[in-house]
């Protein structure tokens, strides 16, 4: 076991939590990520292997699925895999062995920082941040979008819970934008 101590994307030893009105924004470092991209001509087998890995049908365009290990659509024949960091720090290796030669796998764990929003007025916050059509953005949906010029993934997990993934280096700017929108809207 190595002896280097991690810091969160916002630079703390503990994840940051902000609550405004009925919405809480929580920094979530405890997630491992890996991206999967089907090899040319292997799309069907890759999709099958992925479904097996996540224990759910492979998510279609703009969707996410799975339980412990989840996958969300990131582009044509491309998905991001999420899993708890504690148990899956070597997620890329696990995914690679599940996918075999059907797909290219890339470790993405620290490429992204995640903020989870929980509460009953999330659309009021999101409409100040991104141009998604929130009327159609139900549980199970995912979309890539730009939040204050930061390229992000937004996942709707339930009507009262969503996750925002942004590039780790921009965590401070993204967090500032989210919390400012919460103060403005709530």
């Amino acid at each position, binding site marked *: 076991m190595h002896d280097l101590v991690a810091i969160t994307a916002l*630079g703390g030893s503990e994840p940051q939590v902000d609550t405004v009105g009925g919405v809480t924004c929580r920094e979530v470092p405890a997630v491992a990520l890996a991206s999967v991209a089907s090899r040319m001509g292997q799309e069907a087998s890759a999709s099958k292997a992925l479904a097996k890995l996540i224990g759910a049908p492979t998510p279609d365009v703009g969707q996410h699925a799975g339980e412990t290990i989840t996958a969300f659509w990131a582009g044509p024949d491309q998905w991001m895999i999420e899993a708890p960091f504690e148990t899956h720090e070597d997620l890329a290796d696990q995914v690679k062995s599940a996918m075999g030669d059907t797909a290219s796998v890339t470790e993405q764990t620290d490429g992204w920082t995640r903020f989870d929003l929980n509460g009953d007025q999330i659309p009021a916050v999101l409409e100040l941040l991104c141009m998604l059509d929130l009327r159609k953005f139900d549980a199970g949906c995912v979309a890539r979008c730009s939040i204050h010029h930061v390229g992000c993934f937004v996942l709707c997990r339930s009507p009262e819970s969503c996750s925002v993934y942004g590039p780790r280096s921009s965590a401070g700017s993204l967090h500032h934008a989210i919390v400012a929108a919460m103060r*403005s809207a709530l």
Partner: protein
Amino acid sequence: MTQNNRLSGGQIDRNTTVNFRFDNRSYTAHPGDTLASALLANDVRLVGRSFKYHRPRGLLTAGSEEPNGIVELRTGNRQEPNTRATTIEMFEGLEAQSQNRWPSLKFDALGVNDLFSNFLSAGFYYKTFMWPAAFWEKVYEPIIRRAAGLGSLSMEADPDEYDKGFRHCDLLIIGAGPSGLMAALTAGRAGADVILADEDFQFGGRLNSETLSVGDQSASDWAAQAVAELSTMPNVRLMARTTVIGAFDHGIYGAVERTGDHLPTLPAGKPRQILWRIYTKKALLCAGATERPIAFENNDRPGIMMASALRTYANRFAVTASQRVAIFTNNDDGHRTAADLHAKGVHICAVIDVREDAPVNYDYEVLSGAQVVNTKGRLGLTFVEVALPDGSTRTLECGALGVSGGWNPNVHLTCHQRGRPVWNEDLAAFVPGSNLPVGLTVAGAANGVMSTQGALQSGMDGAVEAMELSGKLPDLPEAEDAPASQKPFWYVEGCKRAWLDQQNDVTVKDVKLSYQEGFRSVEHLKRYTTLGMATDQGKTSNISALAIMAEVAGKSIPETGTTIFRPPYTPVPISTFAGRMKGQEFHPTRLTPSHYWAKERGAVFVEVGNWLRAQWFPLPGETHWRESVDREARQTRASVGVCDCTTLGKIDVQGTDAAAFLNRVYANGFAKLAVGKTRYGLMLREDGMAMDDGTAARLAEDHFVVTTTTANAVSVYRHMEFVRQCLFPDMDVQLISTTESWAQYAVAGPNSRKLLQKIVDPDFDISNDAFPFMACGNITVCGGLRARLFRISFSGELAFEIAVPSRYGDALMRRLMTEGEEFDVVPYGTEALGVMRIEKGHAAGNELNGTTTALNLGLGKMVSKKKDSIGSILSEREALVEPDVLRMVGIKPVSSEEKITAGGHLMNSAGPVDAAHDQGYVTSAAYSPILNSSIGLGFLKDGANRMGEKMRLVSPLTDLTVEVEIVSAHFVDPEGERLRA
């Protein structure tokens, strides 16, 4: 404390009294008032001075079309100039100042301009201030700026927040008057997803200004009830205080919501305004119509207002501008104002109707076939002079005159995509044409439907058509349905000064003069006279001016032209467009994994794109940046230094065709690169110019990691995706950007291996034999953390780059520092990095500047001719391969005291110094602490064959001439012994 001009009724909250100040005097008002209605209630008619002649002016309208009543709202750093008093919602403590007057509104010294009006006619500025040119900036401009112009800026930063937001809907209804409300009820009840927006703080539009009934209710009660019903519908979003400012492509509308302007103080974190982008399937424009004035002699005195505005003030705000009012009209609507005011107990001096067959009234006098020919009253109207049909003149004593010249549909948004309105003879007005923005339809008065009943019907029809509704529709309430009768009448003949555009001081005569002087297109008229410019954009004046142009030209109005309207519909503060993108938040900031550590060390940071990078790390006692940078470079070359190079773009390239793909995007070959090796790669643009450079490390047969320069990370990724998807779509290759995933540090210097051996786990042999120059591989560090190691060097020293997952980057940097203490390890920043790469002769952004080829860079041999790669063919164009093309060289001063300056040009040691004799230029320069000399890199014609030549480095801009010697670009270790050690 008087509010002498209050009437009964109205939609104000009389139970609450609020205090406000105008020009430093205190007044009272009620919630529901605007600043304009509150001023009138307090008998304040004079509110401003005109733009050019500084004539006393009062309110003309009761809406956002107001040209005169513009004030500076709020004080200190929140002062906002050119705010229309007619749209400012009253609140406790409101403060406003009149504008464009000195020393005071009642005595304005520049009122003297009015006496010289003969010299200040159309095109005055163009005619007068032509010469001498030298006077422009120093003399004329300051004078003009002081005299003319509108409000003043606080010159302080706006402390408030502004937001941007995005909303989607099926139907956007613009305007909540009778047609807008009826449309919203129709679509809302049918379950459609509706946004209803109105610029006013109270929905209802003209319904709030009229004494009509709708169904069995008063118009305003019906409006209130409709709003109450709409507010219970979850599928309807009501946006009051929201001006739809523009119609953009494909159903996108811009809207400004004034969320905080009506609040005495903004709650923390709340925005003053929100700029919405509204995505719509359909939109229905229910923007109503704007009444237009009639021009006559001295028609700009405070107290002369639009008749419909007088009616609004009386019915909605319970205010009259004066207790004695006359009306001047060419249509029936003017009579309605007289009747409403009379019913409220205001004395109607007379209704002056230009029509011979004006409606008869027994409550007050109606002068048929009469015209107002002059007015009196220095700071406010006192008398009106009327010419009667028999040629006699009558003088009426009154404090307010309501003018009604007919109504112009508010077609503005229909023109935002070059749609042209069409002339309607019956209305004598422009109505929306057929070429509307996609998805937009128009209802109500905006579409020329001028009765209330017609507006309700048209709103319902508009909603049904837009949403394709079928089935049972709501019952339409019954309302006034009188046909509007009018006689087109634009101005009274024979006037010396009859004002058309009161905001820009343009008279009927100015329009005629401009036509005589050859400005015959409406667009030229606008620019020559300034008619229709500034904050009101001619909402009350454009059509009248056009009518006068048409008359002078002897053409019809539609033949003469139309003005086209552009966004925004009403003025928008720049702050609103900026939103949160200001100051530190102007763009996102990217922090490196070692940022917090570097900050603790007192690093000085520099912005590189969005990144903040450590530029150098000053130590106590160092007083000049060069001291720090020289030390960092020297110590690295002497022992070992560490630099955060995470910012370099990193792209994961995988797939069975990964190597073949890299062969296409890089000019040099990658197919034969062994697994576990790294190679320098040069990317060209298709035109043969160098695009970017970096390295590609082969981690597996089908897996490379490509690095790009920091600046080009995004564009190189985009380019590679273009090559993959558009040029070679069947290649099995996948690209993933992984820049952020890995914290990557350069560890450079003769002791770099020794330092790394202390943290790399013992399973991994990184000796020179096992891990030679350009080796790469997956390793573990610090007891099992996965990491990547590359033996590459930018400094020219024995060097490595080590990468760990970003979350451990901070800890790794701290570990390197403690483990490196025995080697006197030094962190170095981008400056020392730059010094060392110049010493080594590595090209960077300054050299890869978009105008240089591989040959220029001394890398011509890298461009493989045995394979297809982007840019290879065009890099051989004749002019790019001539014998004397620019070649990269090193430059050093003959005397080591002298300095090389980047940007300077190279000239032969003798001969003229001019562009024709230019030999090349310097791209990068630095002080080399190990050579104790200033050095530079640059491009020189036929440079490869001019080593040792003495030249002049000149910079005429900075008056610099330095004698220099041309040398190899590799100032240190030209044989590369150090990096292979």
